[in-house]
C-alpha cells in the first residue's frame, strides 16, 4: 500500500507543476549567436566543417572557422555537448535534450526531451552510427542501439564508491522507491566520457574517474587522491592519460596511479584537447590555457572569459568560450 502511494503522489506533483506541459521551443536566430556562451565544438567528419553548440539552443556551423551560420533548431535549451560522426551529428544538453542531424548539421530533430527530469545531459558519444551513450547530471546515463531513435536510461552504481554502494544495497531490500530516489541523489554528475583505444574513460563529480571495457555497461572506479570534480579525462595522441578538474587540479595516470601535476592556477580546467603536431592543450576558466609540455606552460587570454573546449582546425586553435568563438594565438 505504502509503496503504491509514492508514485501516485509524485504523479500528482508533476501534473500540477508547469513543467509537464513544457514543449520544446524553437531557438531564435540571433546576430550575436557566435558571441554567445558556447560549450562544445567539434569537426564534422570529412566535410572539413566545424560545429559548435551552446546556450539558447544555438547550433553554429562554419566551413572556415571565421564566419558562422546559425542553424534552425527545434529547442532553445542550453546545449552542452556535440558529437559528429560523418554526416550524423548528435547534440545534447539541458532538459535532457538530444538532437540529431543526419545531414551534417543542416536540419535537426528532437530525439529526446525530458524537462521533468530537471537534469542536464553533459556529454554524448557514439561508437558507430547506431550505438551511443549520453551522460549527465546525477548519474544520468542514456544508451541507444538504434542511432538514437530510442534512448534507454541506465543506472551505474559501479560509479559510486564502496560505502555508497553498500548504503544503497541496504535500502534496496526495504523500500524500492526510496532506493531509486536516493540513488538519483547520490550518483555523481557525469561530466565527460572519452575513448581510449577500446576502452571508455569517464570523469565526474566528487573525484569520480572511471574506466569501462564494454562500452560503458560496467565501470571500474579509479582511485585518485582528490575529492573535487573532474571535468575531462582524455588519452593524448602519445598515449598518456590526463584528468582535469576543479581549481586547477590536473592529474596524469601512470603506472596504475594518478599523479598530481602542479598547475599554479586555481581556475577550473574544462577540457583537454589533442592538437596535431603540438603538445596537448588544457582550456580553463578565467581565460587560462595550459600547454602540457615537459614543463607546463600557462597562458591567459586578454578578456579572461572562461574557455570551455577547443578544436584544431586549419592550423588554428579555435575555442568555445563564454564570449563565443575565439582563436588562441599564443
Amino acid at each position: 500500500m505504502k509503496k503504491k502511494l509514492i508514485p501516485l503522489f509524485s504523479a500528482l506533483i508533476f501534473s500540477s507543476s508547469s513543467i509537464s506541459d513544457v514543449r520544446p521551443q524553437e531557438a531564435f536566430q540571433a546576430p550575436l549567436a557566435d558571441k554567445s556562451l558556447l560549450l562544445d565544438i567539434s569537426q564534422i567528419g570529412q566535410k572539413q566543417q566545424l560545429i559548435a553548440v551552446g546556450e539558447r539552443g544555438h547550433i553554429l556551423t562554419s566551413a572556415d572557422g571565421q564566419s558562422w551560420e546559425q542553424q534552425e533548431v527545434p529547442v532553445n535549451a542550453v546545449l552542452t555537448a556535440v558529437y559528429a560522426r560523418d554526416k550524423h551529428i548528435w547534440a545534447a544538453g539541458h532538459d535532457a535534450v538530444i538532437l540529431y542531424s543526419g545531414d551534417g548539421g543542416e536540419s535537426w530533430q528532437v530525439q529526446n526531451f525530458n524537462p521533468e527530469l530537471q537534469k542536464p545531459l553533459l556529454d554524448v558519444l557514439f561508437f558507430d552510427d547506431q550505438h551511443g551513450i549520453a551522460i549527465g547530471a546525477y548519474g544520468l546515463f542514456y544508451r541507444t542501439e538504434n542511432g538514437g531513435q530510442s534512448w534507454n536510461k541506465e543506472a551505474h552504481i559501479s560509479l559510486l564508491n564502496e560505502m555508497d554502494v553498500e548504503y544503497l544495497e541496504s535500502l534496496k531490500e526495504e523500500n524500492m522507491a526510496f532506493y531509486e530516489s536516493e540513488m538519483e541523489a547520490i550518483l555523481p554528475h557525469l561530466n565527460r566520457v572519452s575513448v581510449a583505444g577500446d576502452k571508455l574513460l569517464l570523469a565526474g563529480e566528487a573525484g569520480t574517474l572511471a574506466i569501462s571495457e564494454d562500452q560503458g555497461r560496467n565501470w571500474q572506479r579509479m582511485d585518485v587522491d582528490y575529492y573535487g570534480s573532474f571535468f575531462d579525462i582524455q588519452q593524448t595522441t602519445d598515449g598518456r592519460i590526463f584528468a582535469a578538474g576543479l581549481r586547477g587540479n590536473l592529474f596524469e595516470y601512470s603506472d596504475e596511479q594518478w599523479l598530481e601535476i602542479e598547475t599554479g592556477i586555481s581556475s577550473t580546467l574544462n577540457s583537454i584537447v589533442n592538437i596535431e603536431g603540438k603538445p596537448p592543450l588544457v582550456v580553463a576558466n578565467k581565460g587560462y590555457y595550459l600547454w602540457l609540455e615537459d614543463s607546463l606552460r600557462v597562458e591567459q587570454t586578454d578578456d579572461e572569459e572562461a574557455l570551455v573546449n577547443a578544436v584544431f582546425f586549419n592550423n588554428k586553435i579555435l575555442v568555445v568560450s563564454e564570449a563565443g568563438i575565439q582563436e588562441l594565438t599564443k
Partner: protein
Amino acid sequence: MTKLIDVLELVIFRHRVWVIALFALFTGYLAVQATNLRLDAAFTKNIPLNHTYMKNYMKHQKNFGGANSILVSVCDRDSDIFNETFFNRLKNVHDQLFFIPGVDRSQVKSLYSPSTRFTEVVEEGFSGGPVIPADFSASDPRGLELVSQNISKAGIVGRMVSDDFQCAMVNAQLLELDPQTGEQLDTLAFAQDLEDQLRGKYEDDEISIHIIGFAKMVGDVADGAKDVLLFFAVAIAITAVMVYFFCKSLLLTVLPLACSIIAVVWQMGLVTLLGFGLDPMSILVPFLVFAIGVSHGVQMINSVGKQVVMGQTAKTGAQMAFRTLLIPGGVALLSDTVGFMTLLVIDIGIIRELAITASLGVAVIILTNLVLLPVLMSYVSLGDKYKAKFENKEKRSDHFWESISRCSSPKVAKVILVSVALLFAFGWYQSSQMKIGDLHPGAPALHEDSRYNQDTFLITDKYAISVDYLSVLVETTPSACTSHQIMSDIDEFQWKMENVAGVQSTVSLASVAKLINAGYNEGNPKWRVLPRNQQTMVQAISRVDTSSGLLNGDCSVMPVILFMEDHKAETISRVVDAVKEYRQQYQQEDLQFKLASGPVGVMAATNEAVKAAQDPMMAYVFGAVILLCLLSFRSLRATLSVVVPLYVVSVLAQALMTKLQIGLTVSTLPVIALGVGIGVDYGIYILSTMSQKLKDGVAVRQAYFDALKERGSAVLFTGITLAIGVSTWVFSSLKFQMDMGILLTFMFVVNMLGAIVVLPALASVFWYKQSGDKKVQK
C-alpha cells in the same frame, strides 16, 4: 480704437512726471526683487514628467534609483592603482562623497563599500569576502596583492576598476529631496561641492578625478552660463555703438538702451516674485528681452527723430510717435508674447519656465518701450544740429529705398517669388530630415572638449560601463522571480534586445541568476541556466540583494538594463521600437515590459515629447500670429504677406539645423518659436504703414516706398543689431548656446530680409490691381 489711443495719449502725456515716478518706483522695487534671483536647476525640470515613460520611471524610482546618479572615477596618472597613494585617495573620495549632502548614503559604492564582495568556488562550495578586507592597510604590499586578486575574483573589472587598472570608480545615487529638511536638492550647490570637495581636494599631479552625472553636467553648464554676463556686456556695447551711429545723438542712444535694461530688470524681478529661479538652460532670456526692447526702442527714436526733423517739437514728436507706434508695436510685442506662451504646451519644466519668463519679459517691453520711452523722449530737446545731420541723410537714403522698392514691381516680384518657392522646396526637403534629440556623444549642452565631456569619454573608454543605459521595467506578479517560466521570458526578452543594433550589453536578474546557478555548480559554464527547480531558483536569487537594482522587495518588478553604444536619437528609437515590437507580440497580463528608466529612458521620453510638441507648437505660434495680424490689419492679404515669409524662414531654419547637425532638443525646440515671435515684428512695422495706404488706393510700390522711408531704416538696423548681438553666442563655452546663437542669428537676419524683399513681392501679387512699374514719388 483711435479714441482709446487718444485717451491714453492724453492721460500719459499730461502726467508725464507721474508716469516717470511710477516707473521709477516699480523699477526700484523690482530691482530689489531681482537681486534675489537665483540660478536654479533641477533634474525633474528637464524631463517630461507626464510622459508614460516618466510616469513609470517615477513610479519605480524608489526601488531602483533613478537616472540621477553620479560617477567619480579616481585615476592614477602614471601607474596602475595598486599603490598606497591611490588607495588612500580612493578612500578619501569615497568617504567625502558619502558626506556630501544630497547623496543617498546607502547607494555609495566603490571598492571600499562592504557590499563589494568576491566569491569563488572551492571544493566545499562558495568562499568569499569583501574585496578590501577589514584589516587592509594600503602601505602593506601584501595587502595590495590580496586586493588585486580579490578584484579579479569579484568580476568587477570594467565596472568598479577600469579595464587597464589605472582607475577605480566611486558611484552614488542622488536624492531628489533632502531627507532632513525635505527640501528639493540644490543641484548647483551639489555640483559645486563635488568640484570643491572632491576635485579640489584630491586631484593633483599623481591622481586625477573625473566626475560625470546629470548634477555635475548642470553645474558645468551653470558655470558656462556665467559667460552670458560677458556676452550681455558685449552685446550692450555693440548695440550702443550701433544705435549711436543710427541716431547720432548720445541722449537718443542712452534712452532706448536704458528702457530695455529696465525691461530686463522688471522681468527678472517679476520672475523672482513668481517664485522661479533662472535655469542655466534659459539664462539667455534676459538677453533676448533686451534685444527685443532695443529693436522696438529704435523704432520709437526713429519715429520721434523723423517728426523732429520735420519741424515738430520733441514733445509733439514723442506724442505722435506714441500714437503711431502703439498699435503696430503693441501688436508685434503681443504676438511675441503669445508666441512664447505657446511653448507652455510642451510638458517639460524648463521649457515652460522659459515660456513664462520670456513672455513676461516681452510683455513688459510694451510698458517700458512704448510708454516710458516716448515720455522720456518728450523731454529731449533736439537742436538744429541734429536736424541738419538728417537733412542730407534723408535724401541719400531716399535713393536707396527707391531701389529697394523695386521688389514690389511685378517683374522683380515674380523673380523673387519663384526663387523663394525654390528655396522653400529645398528647405522643406531638408527640414524633413531634421533629427530629433542629441546627435553627438557626451553631454550635448557642452562642447566636446569641455572637461565634462572629456571625463565622459575617459570613463566610457576605460570602463565597460556606460552612462547611456535604458532600463525596461518588467512588471509581473509578486515572487515572480521564483518562476522558471517568467524568468525564462525575461531572459528571452533580454537576449532579443541584446541583439538589437546599438545595444552593447545587457543585465537583469535572469542573467545574474544564471551566473549564480553556474556558481552553485562549481562555476561550471555548462550550468549557466535558469533552474527549473523552484528551490534551486530561490537559492540562486537569494544571493541577489535589492540594492543591486535588479529586483524590488517582492520581486514583482525586475528591470532589464540595456547598455547602449551611444545616445543618438536614432539608436534610442531603434531600441525603443524593438521593445515595443517585442511586447506587442509577447506581453501578457502578468508580464508587462514597461518603458523606461535610466538616462536613456529619460532621453527617449524627452525625444518623444519634443517630437510630439513640434507640430502643435508651430501651429499655435502661427495661429496666434495670424489671429493678431487679422485683428490689427483687418485684411487677409496683409496677414498673408506677413505670415508667408515668416513660415518660409522657419522652414529654412529647420533645414539649417539639418545641415549643421543640430538636433531638435529641449534647448533648440524653443528657438523656432522665439524666432517666429521676434521675426514677425519686422513685417508688422512695415505693413502697418503700408496697409492704410493700400486701402486708400495708393500704388503698391509707392506705399512700400513710403513705408520704407518711415520704418525701413529702423527695420534694417534692428535686424542687424539683433543678429550681431546674438551671433556673439557662437563663442559661448556652452554648445547649446552656440547652437541657439547660430539659429537666432539666422532667424533675425533672414526674417528681416523676408520682410524687406519677400513681403513687398507678395503684396504686388495680392494687390495686383494697384501694382505696376510706375516710379515712386519721393
